[in-house]
């Protein structure tokens, strides 16, 4: 195919859409990111904390949002919908409608005066109606873009022709009532759908009393209540009497796992969501008791079970396995829950507040969108995709990510987003990008040795700062500071004309250091750095004082003190600016080849994706056959894994861009991102080979747990699920007549020391049981389980198996099924399995013809050596540890190394494929560049002071430091250093200094602070 197009359309700007856009943009492609609401961000900004790390949701998302806004290759279109598409993959013509915003985004400075004067008060969608907003509003405080928009359905002028107050009060003259919807045509090579999901609306669930009982809320509403930036400021009180609840109940599966409403699927994220909310609520309110009413707790993701155990043991969250059948309200507003245990016993308990863990469902307009795109939906109304092509829709060139094709949590959404990018690039023209500064850039002025001539600019930020702080007097005080040659106040320092002003002042006063006192460097520092470099100054000669977030916003009610503080902050900033020196960013060459370690499903898929994008790779497999664990999988419901595997092997084996090394083993890895040299040895071949490559994908898989539990190995009738699947596949099964089959779940999983869920075993048991039932409908199947974790659409098969009469018997780890051979001397002895049946409330003994153990997925022992070689980390279970469990699920902290498949955590085949594609596309963001630029703010070593103690080496998260054994001093790898400063803080000898944050610079800041007081 002739790939010509370099543009992509991403529909939906939640975390998945954002990640997909960033990856595409980093590949040098032009992205059009369209979003229906007035800001990018999606669901994540509404969340308070995220499981299992309890990271603040906004804190981890905001950097990605601003990166998205800043990226020169991304064009964000808010309030925009897709209206039509025509053409073919590689050459689509898309029409989108950009709704009228009635506010000129160029003029609007987001000062907020308009909303404060708007007479309309309507429910705020972002805060789930818990707060009111105006007809002119911004979606949330950190919205990107930050401009206000008018809701035409609520605006008095637009609906009734009266008012026009906002137009009068707007200082920027940004209101335009004449604004019209615009149709835009885009020519793109591929489309990525990231439209997300809706939350289930429990209004129809009368028996839970939502909206009729004041103290019954949804989990999303509760999240806003918990949020420190939410309508209650994080102080949870009951709506009825504004009192703190003492007892809180969560009801799981509201709108999930419910055939009565056609939601016969599990919403995948709500169990963890509820556990998180329970933990956070307990942290907020001392003495709060929480209970989670559930059928199963599905904590199947990475490190989720540890979080679940923590909730149980450390926080005392009660988990009650039962079904809530109804709620009644007391006069005091409390709620009495009626709930039924499996054995039919009915109980009642009183709670002060009830949280409904609402499920996830397809977007209300998804059918309409599917019609326009001519793609098909599945039986639940989500986008249809295939187990072995999990990111593809039914139309070539259109891909899905996030929860469009099924409910998923955040890290999986991020993974699918990167994965979808790998799919999309098949139809796009990739060119290797040159990241070195362009030749036409303004030449940099040499300021070494010059006396500091500082320019200080103080920003009003509309009323954001000036509403509290006396900006003019702050500028006045800045002018009096030593070395300040020029100081002035600016209405909006970040506006185009103000940036021009800054550039002019640099020339006019021959300034060589600039400080801007405004908002936060996190969003605006890059912008200002660019501005001063356009005026010929090194970008690192810039300093920022945050007088908004840390001053005017924090001290709204004390304007005089806030002004004093702003002056202090500026004085400190000037002191630092005085000491600033120009810094350089070194270019690092990138070798365009990849090394993939592991030739299983994940490794082969990554190789395939890289090759499809036109990049070469070396694929290493330690065995003499490709396929890994997939070679033992024969069934996957309606798909044939062996057929897919054979096709995949054939496809990559014939590809000249993929160099396959079987029987290969790694002897040594040297180098860093862009410049790796790996020495490999191939069995029966004496010569070592050295491979040169730019990135590494770790796809080493995992292994089946070897158990000795439940008398495994003592009778031929006690087998593992993997062996059982093999048996089902062999035609001659079953040889002995089989009447009773017992399956025991969680063998070697979810136990002390191995506190993780192996994720696939529940589904595997259900799959194998259904296959058995198909062949032998009269076989009795008993499944001893702890929680049935058939998440997502896998739920259907669980229901099916139950309907076919399989018995599910719950057990707790302290009360495991007991196994006894009927004849100790018979190697083919049948087995008596004793289980406590909570339904019948007594022990049952089953004479099993087959006992099938769902053995865990264990991390490979070799991971330890490989981790050392690649300087990457493992978690406590020996699985590879990604850079960030939420937002960087396939990257390692060590740049240029990525993970995919079982090496990361137990997962199903579709998930391995997705992650493998994601790893490929994350890798491509490096491979597609001729060189990258290292950070300017990096650590330097004072060799006279360093004693080579190695403290810093162990602390560095990026493996950027090594002690030179000869010289016995620390050496910084400038390509890897990220400038986090952890090493500097740890150095007892003060031998390390972070450029741009040197000890000298920081001490001068302290001195300055002292001098102001």
């Amino acid at each position, binding site marked *: 195919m002739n790939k010509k197009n370099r543009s992509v359309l991403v529909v939906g700007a939640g975390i998945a859409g954002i990640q997909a856009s960033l990856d595409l943009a980093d590949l040098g492609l032009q992205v059009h990111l369209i979003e229906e609401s007035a800001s990018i961000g999606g669901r994540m900004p509404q969340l308070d904390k995220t499981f299992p790390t309890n990271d603040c949701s906004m804190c981890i998302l905001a950097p990605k949002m601003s990166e998205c806004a800043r990226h020169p290759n991304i064009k964000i279109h808010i309030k925009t919908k897709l209206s039509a598409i025509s053409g073919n993959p590689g050459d689509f013509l898309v029409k989108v409608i950009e709704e009228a915003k009635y506010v000129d985004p160029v003029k609007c400075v987001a000062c907020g005066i308009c909303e404060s004067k708007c007479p309309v008060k309507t429910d705020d969608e972002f805060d789930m109606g818990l707060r009111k907003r105006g007809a002119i509003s911004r979606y949330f405080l950190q919205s990107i873009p930050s401009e206000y928009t008018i809701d035409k359905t609520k605006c008095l002028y637009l609906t009734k022709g009266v008012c026009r107050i906002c137009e009068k009060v707007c200082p920027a003259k940004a209101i335009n009532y004449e604004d019209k919807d615009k149709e835009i045509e885009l020519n793109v090579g591929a489309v990525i759908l990231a439209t997300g999901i809706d939350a289930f609306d429990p209004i129809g669930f009368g028996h839970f009393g939502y909206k009729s009982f004041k103290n019954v809320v949804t989990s999303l509403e509760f999240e806003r209540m918990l949020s420190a930036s939410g309508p209650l400021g994080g102080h949870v009180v009951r709506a009825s009497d504004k009192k703190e609840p003492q007892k809180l109940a969560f009801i799981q599966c509201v709108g999930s796992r419910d055939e009565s409403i056609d939601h016969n699927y599990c919403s995948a994220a709500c169990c963890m969501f509820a556990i998180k909310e329970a933990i956070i609520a307990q942290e907020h309110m001392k003495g709060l008791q929480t209970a989670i009413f559930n059928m199963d707790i599905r904590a199947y993701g990475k490190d989720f079970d540890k979080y679940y155990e923590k909730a149980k043991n450390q926080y005392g969250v009660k988990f009650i396995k039962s079904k809530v059948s109804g709620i009644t309200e007391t006069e005091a507003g409390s709620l009495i829950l009626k709930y039924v245990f499996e054995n039919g016993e009915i109980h009642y308990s009183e709670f002060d507040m009830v949280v409904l863990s609402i499920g996830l469902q397809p977007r209300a307009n998804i059918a309409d969108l599917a019609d326009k795109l001519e793609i098909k939906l599945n039986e639940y109304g989500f986008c249809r995709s295939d187990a072995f092509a999990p990111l593809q829709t039914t139309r070539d060139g259109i891909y899905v990510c996030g929860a469009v094709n099924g409910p998923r949590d955040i890290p999986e959404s991020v993974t699918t987003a990167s994965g979808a990018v790998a799919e999309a690039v098949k139809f796009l023209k990739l060119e290797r990008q040159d990241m070195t500064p362009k030749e036409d850039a303004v030449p940099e002025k040499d300021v070494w040795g010059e006396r500091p001539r500082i320019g200080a600019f103080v920003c009003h930020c509309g009323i954001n700062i000036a509403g509290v702080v006396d900006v003019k007097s702050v500028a006045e005080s800045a002018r009096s500071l030593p070395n300040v040659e020029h100081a002035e106040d600016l209405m909006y320092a970040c506006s185009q004309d103000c940036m021009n002003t800054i550039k002019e002042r640099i020339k006019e006063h021959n300034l060589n250091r600039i400080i801007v006192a405004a908002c936060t460097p996190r969003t605006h520092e890059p912008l200002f750095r660019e501005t001063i470099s356009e005026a010929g100054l090194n970008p690192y000669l810039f300093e920022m004082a945050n007088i908004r977030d840390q001053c005017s916003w924090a001290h709204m009610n004390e304007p005089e003190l806030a002004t004093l503080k702003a002056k202090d902050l500026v004085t400190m900033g000037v002191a630092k600016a005085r000491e600033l020196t120009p810094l350089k960013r070194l270019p690092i060459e990138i070798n365009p080849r990849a090394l993939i370690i592991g030739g299983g499903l994940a490794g082969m898929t990554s190789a395939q994706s890289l090759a499809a994008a036109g990049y070469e790779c070396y694929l290493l497999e330690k065995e003499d056959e490709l396929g890994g664990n997939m070679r033992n999988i024969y069934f996957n419901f309606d798909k044939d894994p062996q057929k897919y595997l054979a096709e995949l092997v054939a496809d990559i084996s014939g590809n000249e861009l993929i160099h396959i090394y079987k029987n290969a083993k790694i002897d040594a890895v040297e180098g860093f991102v862009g410049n790796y040299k790996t020495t490999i040895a191939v069995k029966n071949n004496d010569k070592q080979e050295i491979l040169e490559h730019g990135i590494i994908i770790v796809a080493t898989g995992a292994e089946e747990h070897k158990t000795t539990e439940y008398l495994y190995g003592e009778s031929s009738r006690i087998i593992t699920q993997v062996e059982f699947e093999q048996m089902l596949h062999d035609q001659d099964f079953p040889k002995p007549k089989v009447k009773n089959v017992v399956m025991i779940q969680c063998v070697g999983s979810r136990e002390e020391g191995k506190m993780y869920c192996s994720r696939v075993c529940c589904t595997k048991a259900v799959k194998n049981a259904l296959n058995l039932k198909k062949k032998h409908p009269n076989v009795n199947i008993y499944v001893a389980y702890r929680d049935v974790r058939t998440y997502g659409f896998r739920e259907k098969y669980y229901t099916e198996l139950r309907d076919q009469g399989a018995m599910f018997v719950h057990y707790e780890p302290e009360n495991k099924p007991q196994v006894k051979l009927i004849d100790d001397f018979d190697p083919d002895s049948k087995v008596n399995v004793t289980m406590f049946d909570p339904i019948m409330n007594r022990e049952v003994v089953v004479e099993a013809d087959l006992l099938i153990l769902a053995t865990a997925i264990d991390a490979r022992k070799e991971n330890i050596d490989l981790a050392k070689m690649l300087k990457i980390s493992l978690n406590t279970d020996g699985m590879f540890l990604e850079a960030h469990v939420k937002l960087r699920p396939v990257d390692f902290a060590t740049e240029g190394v990525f993970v995919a498949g079982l090496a990361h955590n137990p997962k199903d085949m579709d998930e391995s494929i997705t992650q493998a594609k994601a790893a490929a596309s994350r890798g491509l963001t490096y491979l597609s560049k001729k060189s990258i630029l290292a950070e300017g703010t990096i650590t330097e070593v004072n060799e006279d*002071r*360093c004693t080579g*103690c190695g403290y810093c080496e162990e602390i560095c998260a990026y493996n950027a430091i090594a002690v030179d054994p000869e010289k016995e001093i620390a050496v910084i790898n400038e390509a890897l250093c990220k400038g986090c400063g952890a090493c500097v803080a740890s150095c007892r*000898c003060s031998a390390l200094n972070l450029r741009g944050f040197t000890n000298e610079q920081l001490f001068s800041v302290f001195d300055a602070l002292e001098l102001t007081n």
Partner: protein
Amino acid sequence: MDKFSKKGIELNSESGIQEAIRRFFQDAEKIFDAVMLPMRVPAKDSYAWIMIKDREYLKDATPIAPIMPVNGAKALKRFTRKGEARLKVAALMRPCEIRAAVELTKLNQINLDDVILCSYDCPGALPMQDYISEPEAGEAKFQYLLDNDIWNSAEVKPVCRICDKFSLPASDLHFAIEQGKVIIIANSEKGAEILKDMNLPGAYLLENWDRSIQQIKQKRLAAKEQNFAETKNKIEGFEKLLETFSVCIGCHNCQSACPICYCRQCYFDSVTAKPNADVVMMKMEQRGGLTLPMDRIMFHTGRMAHMSLSCVSCGLCSDACPVDIPVAEIFSYVGSQTQQAFEYCAGESLGDALPMKEYKSDELSELKAILSDATAQEVADE
């Protein structure tokens, strides 16, 4: 007590404790290539570390010296930090010196590969000033302690009086002292190998010794608690801190004497720490006046921040202080607090990772608890 130290071997102690230890090293001539231990200097007014190959010199050595002019770990550092040692050296040191050696090993300043660390039950060391002014009196005093089995003497340095880690540090061999008898204990696998090779006769049960060590420890712990309370009272709060260090003459002797201050150049001696004239003038104008030089408190608190996590309370800083600031007691007190916060004990074991090299997921909640305790304390104080 661990598995290596349930039984010991009694050495011939007829001619006294010092001689018993000397004789052991004499007998072990084939095992160690060299021995490092203290020897009285010819002028008879101090001690120095010597490393000897020729065992003739042993007779002039004093295994348990009454004073500690230089921390043994510092001596050890001199010949193990760089390059490869060819010879196996037995180093006989006080437990606090062993702990300093362990700490410096973790900081890559000492290499213990070819070193056999030997320790003994330490009665404490005399304050340097006391000894130097009257060496013979000091000798007599110390001999009296050893001869009469005195373990809680008021004559030894203040930090020694409150030292509860005076026995069985992380050494390879340990000389236990029980009522004038010397018993050698293998305290590591390396040590066990050595004793096996030496094939010494007679096993000695250590129950009584252990009991008496525990009793001494209890007394010292009680003294420590009291001393810490006094120290806390003396230095807590900026005013008191200032008062305590007001006599400091800025000689930085404490830092030179400290075994843990391993930096090549102290930050406080560097150019960076010397402020520019304009800053000094501005500060002077701002405050109305300045004491000069101005980094006195900064130096001590800075040193505290840098090394208190590794402080082994050897007390050399106090010995080195010409103006009698109780530096050792202050650092010992602060060190015990900071080490406690990390559940760390400096020099106790090679296996314990240095604080900050290790991340424990409950750290944050602990910190929160400490902070909320502190806030509660503040509220209570008010």
